[in-house]
């Protein structure tokens, strides 16, 4: 029953995807092939896939964590940007080499936590729905980046809207020669493990899940609601902020206008596809990472790379429909 539902959803999803590609005047097979070779075609491409996966893992964990507590934090994008700003700010400073990278990451995490904590504070003390506040904070963050790369953080040459490059000690080392794969991938793996253990074994993680499962029951059992929610906002924001810092220190080495291609939004798809579990986030981030990396080469097949967005949406819709079918099947 569940298998049939899955096949049905995937089938209908593929049908719509093919329809979109055909209508845009391209061949679905060619697009598929381009996608595959772009994601896994060469050593460099595999590296690119993993490079795209890293921020998706971190933001995916951020979204999963807050959704687990039933907090609709859709502000991972903004938190990521704030993390990137902070990491750049620290990264261009002259600091002792061994602690330069850790300081960058710490600054990124703190800035993300701050940004998300703001939404948390607004929810807990002013009753502002986090859906609205985190969304608004995303837009504010985009403009904030636009401003700092033209203002306080603009390169010394004052030519382009971008920052100076990071000093070398603030950069992640490249792990795989010939690719851009950097040591941040290890950080992503370790954090996945930590988030998984936190949710499963830690008392605070249990509190977070209890608040998500039933705030009333959690409150009645002496779990501090406000503190748990605020902690969740802060942790979630820190993870997303870290994603921004990792991008700065591992991939771009500088901050520029329009910095994120929407990692924070794709993260919602990543987390949902993973059913909000930490190991699941790793897998679904890999899938979406491969799509993003492969997406840059679909242009060869005669279609815009934004087709990846369509693909993501169709995956999500199929997932939503599957969730409904599976629940119905379970009841009958």
């Amino acid at each position, binding site marked *: 029953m569940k298998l049939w539902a899955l096949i049905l959803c995937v089938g209908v999803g593929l049908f719509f995807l093919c329809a979109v590609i055909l209508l845009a005047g391209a061949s679905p097979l060619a697009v598929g092939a381009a996608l595959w070779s772009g994601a896994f075609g060469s050593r460099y491409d595999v590296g690119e896939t993993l490079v795209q996966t890293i921020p998706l893992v971190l933001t995916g964990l951020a979204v999963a964590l807050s959704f687990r507590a039933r907090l609709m934090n859709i502000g991972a994008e903004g938190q990521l940007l704030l993390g990137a700003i902070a990491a750049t700010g620290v990264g261009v400073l002259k600091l002792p080499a061994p602690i330069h990278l850790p300081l960058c990451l710490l600054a990124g995490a703190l800035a993300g936590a701050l940004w998300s904590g703001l939404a948390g504070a607004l929810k807990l003390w002013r009753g502002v729905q986090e859906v609205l506040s985190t969304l608004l904070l995303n837009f504010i963050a985009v403009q904030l980046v636009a401003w700092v790369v033209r203002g306080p953080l603009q390169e010394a040459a004052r030519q382009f809207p971008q920052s100076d490059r990071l000093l070398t000690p603030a950069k992640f080392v490249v792990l795989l020669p010939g690719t851009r794969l950097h040591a941040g991938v290890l950080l992503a793996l370790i954090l996945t493990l930590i988030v998984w253990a936190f949710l499963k074994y830690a008392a605070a993680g249990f509190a977070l899940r209890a608040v998500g*499962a039933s705030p009333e029951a959690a409150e009645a*059992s002496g779990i501090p609601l406000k503190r748990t929610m605020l902690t969740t906002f802060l942790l979630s924001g820190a993870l997303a902020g870290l994603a921004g810092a990792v991008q700065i220190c591992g991939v771009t080495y500088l901050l520029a206008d329009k910095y994120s291609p929407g990692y924070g939004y794709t993260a919602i798809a990543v987390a949902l596809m993973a059913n909000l579990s930490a190991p699941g986030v790793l897998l679904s981030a890999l899938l979406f990472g491969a799509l993003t990396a492969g997406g840059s080469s679909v242009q060869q097949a005669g279609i815009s790379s934004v087709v990846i967005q369509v693909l993501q949406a169709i995956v999500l819709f199929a997932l939503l429909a599957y969730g409904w079918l599976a629940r119905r099947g379970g009841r009958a």
Partner: protein
Amino acid sequence: MVEARGIVRRFGSFTALDGVNFDVRPGEIHALLGENGAGKSTLMNVLSGLLRPSAGELFLEGQPVRFASPADATARGVGMVHQHFLLVPSLSVGENLLLGASARLGGPWSYPLRSVLGEAKALAEQLGWKLPWDALAGSLSVGVQQRIEILKALRGGAKLLLFDEPTSVLTPTETPELFDVIRRLAQEGRGVVFISHKLDEVLSLADRITVLRRGKVVASFARSEADEALLATAMVGEESEAARMLAIPLRSAPQPPVMGEPEGEVPPNLEDRGQKYSQGEPRLTVTELTLNTSGGKPALDRVSLCVAAGEILGIAGVDGNGQTELAECLTGLKLPSSGTITIENQKPTPTPAGFLAAGVTSVPADRQRRGLALSMTLTENLALGTFSDARFRKGPFLSWSALRERTREAIARFDIRAEGPGATAGSLSGGNQQKVVLARALADSPKVIIAVNPTRGLDVGAIAFVHQALRQAQSGGAAILLISTELDEVLALSGRIGVLFEGRLTPASDTSRSALGRLMGGVL
């Protein structure tokens, strides 16, 4: 007037109604009696068009009918007064009436508020009611809201009226007023179906009584043939513990307490009630507890009480007189405006965690919201209660093996029917869910237990189990505050009894049903 023949209604594999025959004649009040879950509400929903029968036929004035929807049933003259009012709190009384008004008054783009109000005002006048037509429905008292529901049901000249547990929310003084109205409506030639599980009400109001048990009609009486013992037995079956429990207090008060003066009944004092309780040291002491609300009238007004170790103090009263607020204050969920709460002469930190640490556990009224997290496992639900307990902590981590072990013990001790510690709370039946709540509340021999309506919605076996568990905790030395709207429950378990009315607690020196009934209605 209306007749149901061989009605069957299934929900999945569960048969809620199994070949039910039922009819109502014009001018007749026909009571439908049964326990929770006997199928009364399902039958009512079939008659009102909300549910379609799986098999069987409905006849309206001799003609076979199939109601497509409640609106269809309404159009054919069937009106329903719901137990949980279906009024929109943020709309005015007039708008609420218009919402349910029949389509013949105009299409979706019309707004016949005036004619609807005119019709309703005329009806209200006949019944001698004065209603605040422009007030928001949510701002009105329960009794007034029920009147609006009745007006809604009567709109467009209903010939058959269905009342679903209409007295469950009323004070004992409001109940006879409602009964007068129901009698009037029947005298005017309407058929009335009256659902209740209260024997006294059924006997005082109905012309005919049909008893449902497990989806089947087990007996049907004319009023003259029926008495309480007969009805109680029919309702719960032969020789069951619960029949005796229900029947005994009723026999001691042959007259329904709310309907008139009892005949020469000797008010039993505490010793007569055969309750033993130790004169232990006071555990829970509440002094002059007041909780103000934004509405003006305090929800709790200078409540003082004291519960000793090994004692059950019963608090009776009709829903909405401060029970929820009292329980919330005593578990740290709400901060009182003034007054003190002490546990063994210590003031607990005024948070839920603080009260738990002081040894206060609770059986909350709403077990599916406050009591349990339905999507979590039994182990996790039991762990909710021990969240800050050092025994189940290893540094920042919870020791899940110990918690699972504890859950296995609870499953055995409380006879919880579940697949194991890993089953979700939502997969259990209502009775087993309540056992999980009890297991958590009683686990570590708490000093004080606050139990609110601990048996609401449970079947007879589960009720007996809960009562036994509470008695055991009592003999184990716990101080128990039992807040319940079921007078029988309060009478069966408590050593001393108080009554909450409009936020004020009155100790009952006379614990006869009639005296308590008067207190519950605010007659001091």
